[in-house]
Structures are given as C-alpha cells and as structure tokens.
C-alpha cells in the first residue's frame, strides 16, 4: 500500500457534497425547533416542563447522566486499552475521542437546560462550596472535556501536516486551516518526542479524570439519603454503565463511518468483533453491579426501599425496568457471545438497542426515587406526584442529541476519521515527505 492510496482512502470524504448539506440542514432545522422550545422555557420558566416539587430532576438530569456516561468511552478505548498496548484500537481511537469530546462538551449544556436562571451559571464558581459535589462535577466535566480535546488534537497534528502537503483534492479553504493546525510539524525527533510524551501524560490523566467525572455525577444522587440513590456502589455502578453506553455509541459510529466514508478496509470485522467483546465484558460488569444494587436493598427491604423497589420491579415502572434490563443488557450479552452476532450489521442493531436502553436506564435511576419522598407534601395536585414530561421538555431533551450529531458530523467530515500518520506507520509506510 502506498501513501497516496492511504491518503485517498482516509480523506476522500473530506468534501462538501449534497448528502452532507442535506444532513446538516436537517440537523440545523431540528436544532432550531428545539431552541425555540428552549426559548419558551427561558421566557416562561421551568414550569413548562413536567418537573414539579416532587420530581424536580426530570428528563434533563437523566439526559445529563447519559451524556456524561457516553463521553467516558474515550477513556476506556484510548486510556485503558491504549496504555496496555492493544494494537487493534488504532482506527477506533479517533472515533472514541470524537464521541468523548462531543458528549462532554454538550453535557455541560444539558445541565444548563435544567436551570431556571441560566445566566447565574457563573455563580457555581463565584460562590460554589468546596464541599458540594456540584462544584466538583462542573470542575471535572470541564477538565475531562479539555483533556479529551487535547487527546483528539495531538494525533491530528501529523495528519494535518501530511494532508495539507498532499495532492489530494480538498476544499480550498481547508488547506490553510490544516497548515495552521499542523503546527509546522515535519516529523522531527524533538517534535515526535513532545507529541508522544504529551499523549502519554494525557492518557494517564484521562483515567482518573474520567473516573471522577462519572463518580462525582453518581454522587450527586448517592450523597442524598433517598431510597434508590442511597447506595455506596453508585460510583462503580455508574462508571460500568457508562462503558456500556459508550461502547454501543462507538459501534454505531463505526458502522456509519465504515459505510458512508467507505472505510471497509480499515474498520474491519475484526474491529467489530473486538468492540463486541469489549461490550460483552463491560455489560457483564454492569450486570454484576445491577445485581448488587437491587438484591442487597431488596433483601433487607427497609420501608422506603420496599416502596421504591416494588414500583420498580413489580409496579408502575416495572415494564420499563424489565425491558431495559433484559432487552438492553441480558439479551445483548447472550447474543454477542456468538460470533455471527458480532458482525457489523447485527452488532450495530444490538448496540442501538443497548444505547436506547441505556438512556431509559438513566431515566429510571433519576425519576422514580423522587416520586417517593420521605415527607410527602399534603394536598398536592396529581401532577406533583407522578412525573410526566411535556412536549417542550422532550424537544429540549432532544437538542443535545442534535448538537452531538452536529459536532461529530463536522469533526468526522473535515478530518480523517482514521488516524493517518499512525496507520501509515503500522502499514509499514516509512517514507513520508514533510518538506
């Protein structure tokens, strides 16, 4: 394989075509609709959403947990698998990092959608308490976003240097942008040393940062003494669940990039099989934590836990609960044990099911607990007691998904999805001209 062929394969999608314009147009129009819904909430107040005095953390918070969770995959792929020297992850790393950056960037915005006075966001820093998990959460989300962005950018430097010098047809305005981003990289040993050392530091920092971001998010719930949240294993429970959601997201993204950008030679069945194995592993760990999370309080059945668990396992939320647990966790694991279900199409279908279940899992972690307060308010209207999201709320919840799709589309459309420089080295292409 020659360098020219490699560059062509990995960058031929970098052009503004009709499909891209239609897709982006669709996303932008949808975003506008959702932003209009948000403008209504901003004008009238949070009352336009279904959240009331009982359930004050509704879909917005479930969404926030989901977004933080999905962003964690960057740490699993690049950090954990990368540091222990897995070679097959090279073509997946940038996809994982793109997803991490997109979801982490938007997670902060999701939280703002739950604020009645978003202009007071800065107060978290001005008056935030060191003792409050909310301050920790804001801090780690920002830190994780910056770390992930750097980790996305550093391997791109060499790629940019190669592409902007190549004869590959590119939109004319893009070449100077690439030149700027390439930081005059010419493959000198000093430059390579800086990059590889920086990446190493970032990978090491990424692991504690990612663990903190989701552990602290789980503490937002676990530090309150409420049935269903009052748990000592909420940190690992959330982290393992995050890997499930993130792995599924990566598989879906791999499938679309492979098909739309014609990367069949680079994202092979092997990558899907391996991602399937990763998904099985993290799902089993998550299943294990689920067992702990429900069996231990279910055995003791303290009064408040009993009410909560009854609603969840046999009452109002039972259907949702069992569909999520069986359809989104147990069955996917069983299917993916077989090689034929780890082929690209079947595993993508499984991943979609897992991802949808992952969102609703956050929903039943966040909402049912609040429907059983220890001190119920007397004589309240029915809509205080049972939470029902409104249309405006659903539209505002959809907005972050559209934003994530826009970010992922833009990054993947204007940069190579597969790391070019690393792949060239792995394929044995030694001679790369940088002068």
């Amino acid at each position, binding site marked *: 394989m020659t360098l020219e062929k490699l560059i062509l394969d990995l960058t031929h999608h970098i052009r503004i075509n009709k499909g891209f314009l239609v897709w982006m147009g669709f996303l932008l129009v949808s975003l506008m609709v959702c932003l209009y819904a948000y403008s209504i909430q901003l004008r009238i107040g949070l009352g336009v959403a279904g959240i009331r005095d009982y359930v004050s953390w509704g879909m917005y918070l479930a969404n926030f947990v989901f977004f933080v969770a999905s962003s964690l995959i960057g740490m699993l792929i690049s950090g954990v698998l990368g540091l222990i020297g897995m070679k097959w992850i090279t073509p997946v790393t940038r996809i994982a990092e793109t997803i991490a950056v997109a979801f982490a960037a938007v997670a902060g915005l999701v939280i703002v959608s739950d604020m009645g006075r978003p202009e007071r966001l800065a107060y978290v820093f001005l008056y935030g*308490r*060191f003792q409050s998990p909310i301050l920790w959460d804001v801090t780690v989300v920002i830190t994780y976003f*910056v770390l992930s962005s*750097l980790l996305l950018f550093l391997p791109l*430097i060499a790629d940019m240097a190669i592409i902007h010098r190549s004869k590959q047809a590119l939109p004319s305005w893009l070449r100077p942008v690439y030149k700027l981003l390439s*930081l*005059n990289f010419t493959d000198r040993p000093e430059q390579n040393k*800086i990059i590889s050392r920086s990446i190493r530091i970032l990978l090491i920092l990424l692991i504690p940062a990612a663990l903190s971001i989701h552990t602290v998010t789980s503490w937002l719930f676990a530090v309150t003494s409420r049935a269903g949240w009052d748990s000592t294993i909420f940190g690992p429970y959330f982290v393992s669940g995050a890997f499930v959601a993130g792995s599924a997201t990566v598989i879906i993204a791999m499938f679309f990039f492979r098909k739309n950008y014609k990367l069949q030679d680079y994202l092979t069945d092997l990558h899907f099989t391996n991602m399937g194995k990763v998904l099985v592993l993290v799902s089993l760990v998550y299943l294990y934590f689920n067992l702990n999370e429900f069996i231990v309080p279910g055995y003791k059945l303290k009064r408040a836990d009993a009410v909560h668990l009854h609603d969840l396992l046999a009452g109002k939320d039972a259907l949702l609960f069992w569909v999520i647990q069986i359809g989104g966790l147990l069955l996917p694991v069983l299917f993916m044990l077989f090689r034929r279900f780890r082929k690209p199409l079947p595993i993508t279908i499984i991943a979609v099911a897992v991802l949808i279940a992952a969102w609703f899992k956050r929903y039943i972690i966040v909402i049912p607990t609040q429907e059983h307060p220890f001190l119920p308010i007397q004589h309240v209207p029915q809509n205080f007691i049972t939470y029902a999201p409104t249309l405006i709320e659903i539209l505002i919840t959809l907005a972050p998904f559209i934003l994530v799709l826009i970010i992922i589309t833009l990054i993947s459309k204007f940069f190579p999805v597969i790391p070019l420089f690393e792949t060239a080295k792995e394929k044995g292409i030694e001679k790369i001209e940088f002068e």
Partner: protein
Amino acid sequence: MRCKKQLFLIFILASLIPVRSSAQAWIVPDDQKGKVAPFKFTPVMVKQGEQLYLKNCQSCHGLPGKNNWVRITPPPGDLSLEKAQNQSDGELFYRITNGRIPMPEFRKILSDEERWWLISFLRSFNPRYIQPKPVSQAVFTGKIIQLSLSCDLPSKKVKVMASEALKDSSKIPASGVEVLLFVKRYFGNLQIGDSKSTDKDGIVLFEFPSDLPGDKEGKVEILARVNDPGDQFKSNAVSMKLAIGVPTDKPSLIATKTWWTSRRSAPMWVIMTYSLSVIIVWGFIVYIVYNVLKIRNLNNKPNNQ
C-alpha cells in the same frame, strides 16, 4: 443464671409501674376541683357547646348517650354517663384544659369561655345537674395597663406587676389582669405555665421551671404581656434577660468546619484536596499546551538528520 432471672423480673416489674400510673392516675389538683363557671349556663351556650363538641370531641367520645366512643386505650367513654357526670365542673374543666395522652389539651385550642360552653352542653344530658352559683373572677376594667417585671433568682420566682396609669400620670395597682409569661426561643415564644390573673396589689407570681436551658451563662430572655385577645386595653409587653436558666454551652452546628456549612467554613482537607487536584491536573494541561506550541518553532532550527 438465677441472678439474671431476678434481674429480669425486677426489670419487668419496674417497667410496669410507670405504665400503670400513667394509665390510671389523672389527678386533678384540689384547688382546681372547686372551680366553677363564671356565668350561668343558658340554652344558647348549650347550643354553642354542641357545635364545639361535634368539632373537637365527637371523633373519640362519640355522641353523648349513644355509647359509640372509639375503642382505644384508655377508653374515652361516653361523657353522658356517671363516670363523667359525677365529676365536678372544676374537674371537667381541668381535664379539658390540660388533657393527657392520648387526649389533647384544649388550653390553646378553645378559650376559657368555650370550654365552659362545652361543659354546659355535657351537663344538658344530666337531669339531676344543678349548676353551682357562678363566681365571676375579678376582671380589670381600666384602660391603660403598664407591666413591670422583676425576679427573685434564688427561688426562681418571676414577679409581674400590673398597674393602671391614670390621667394625672399617677399609677394604681391593677387587679384581675390576665398575664402571660414567655421565654424567647429561636422561633416564637415558649409559654411558661398558665396565664394568671393579678391579685389586689396588681401582682402575679410565676414559678420558673428549673430545667430550662439558657445560654452559656444561663441567661434567657423572659417576656410578659397581658392576655388581651379582644384588644380592650392599651398595654405593653415587658422583657428582660436573666440568668435564670440552666447554663448550656452547645456549639452551633455551623460554628465548626463541616461538610454542611458555607464555603468559608469548609474543612481544610476538602479545600486542599480539591485545590491540589485542580492545580496538578491543570498544571499538566498548561505544560502540555506550552510544549505543543513549541512544536512550531522546532522546525526553524537546522536539520540535524
């Protein structure tokens, strides 16, 4: 083993004694037994009393004469029967006023007058009842009352003196003024004992409880005012701070460095852990950005390869 058994028996017996006494003894002080209504009962009062009964009493005692009281322990009983009717008006009044578990005290719920109406209603079921001659209490009839507060610390007696201010700015003792004594709390006031009426010298003495906590020096703020729901007089409330309570030194829950206080009193180790983590991680980030920006200039050096 034997010793253990005996101990166990003693324990059981000991635990029974307070139960028995609380279940049976509902002693009305002798000086209250003879209390009589300040007015003659009239059919209108009986009617008023019936309304109050249906609202406040019927849920446990049932309807008088129907024997349909709620079966709880101690049994509330039908109030038209001998057990209740054999009691004097003063005894009934005391029991309605003070209650006992589980009967609520109506001291704050019903006025003196309303409690007498209730008794007039209950007595209407007793054909043999003859109302004792009403004794009207001395009622103050002046217009402007001035209170003054003093205290005898060793005996823990609080003295409130009421005087009537006359037009020529002289004062005479005001008798028959109903006075309330309170202790100031964080929220609202705590009433000390019952209201009392001043004697002919305009003086009323309150027994201050010996177990009420004060501040570090035992100081509490006591407050006296005239019970004047009808707003008939001009009167003042008087208060003073006295070392009459039990000295108590409990640090406030937010005085020390804890999780639940404001940022200013966060525990040092929390501040340090948070700040150090942020400084270390962001130190690395700045270091990396600084190094990465150096890549641009490394190219200008002569090529050594």
